[in-house]
């Protein structure tokens, strides 16, 4: 059960992202052209659900599956890394229409050309690892 639950969550995630078409290059293009509410609706509903859930967890001190207090780490403070890193990711997101989750989902679905995107993403991650200490954060 320990591992299966992660497989199951991932499985549902893969189905939802495919059936909502959030993995589709077309949907991302349409979103950036402001020609559909679909993607905005998905993101806003997900965040709305998340805000309610996390507030419940915090206010009721809910425990996790092991009975331990749930602690959600705050993101590190800062600005440059978020603005600049975000900008770079935005370029890539609009160009190839996928974020990291969909890259894997599309590969699983048999879109082999997305393998080039994955290879690029690993290369980009490596590049960040090499340059990390020279970049402003």
């Amino acid at each position: 059960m320990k591992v299966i639950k992660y497989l199951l969550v991932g499985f549902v995630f893969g189905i939802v992202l495919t059936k909502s078409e959030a993995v589709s290059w077309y949907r991302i293009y349409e979103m950036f052209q402001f020609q559909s509410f679909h993607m905005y609706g998905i993101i806003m509903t997900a965040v709305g659900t998340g805000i309610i859930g996390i507030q419940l967890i915090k206010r009721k001190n809910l425990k996790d599956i092991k009975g331990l207090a749930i602690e959600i780490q705050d993101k590190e403070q800062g600005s440059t890394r978020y603005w600049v890193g975000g900008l770079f990711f935005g370029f890539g997101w609009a160009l190839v229409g996928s974020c990291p989750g969909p890259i894997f989902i599309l590969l699983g679905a048999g879109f082999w050309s997305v393998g080039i995107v994955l290879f690029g993403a690993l290369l980009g991650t490596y590049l960040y690892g090499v340059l990390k200490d020279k970049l402003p954060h």
Partner: protein
Amino acid sequence: MNIIFQTWPWYVSGFLIGMIMLSLIYFGKTFGMSSNLRSLCSMAGLGKRVAFFDFDWKAQRWNLVVVLGAMLGGFVAVQFMSDPSNVAINPKTIAQLAQLGIDAPNGKLMPDALFGPDIFSSPKTILILLIGGVLIGFGTRYAGGCTSGHAITGLSNLQIPSLKAVIGFFIGGLIMAYLLFPLIF
């Protein structure tokens, strides 16, 4: 059984994505897809050369299992739950894409012009996909997260850094869509 084959409405999909994020929190983990890219680099042994990849990736194995599940989910959804009515995007978008030489969806998730089998003989398209990937990998690690880690998890937890990152994602996306697309295609 229309519900299986039709495009799932945004409010159903968004709610389920929120619940997926909350399930991982309940399991004592966090929802973040791009950190798997770092784990994969570490698995490949890059930790010997670059300190950033010298960490205990085995502690992140659960997340790689999520990825494996997501791949299976994508396979099942495309193979057994698809319908020609899918990806019914705005007709205006279709007309605009036609001007860029990009084919209409007609039920497909991805345009053949960018992801079809013919692209392996087009150096330009291969380069576009490769550069797009590099931007995604570099940008997500620099910003410390992607759509799942910042837009969904971070915003749900009311994190200002995540809001900055998400605004950055959109500014970058808009620059690409409006200024760079016409130069590339």
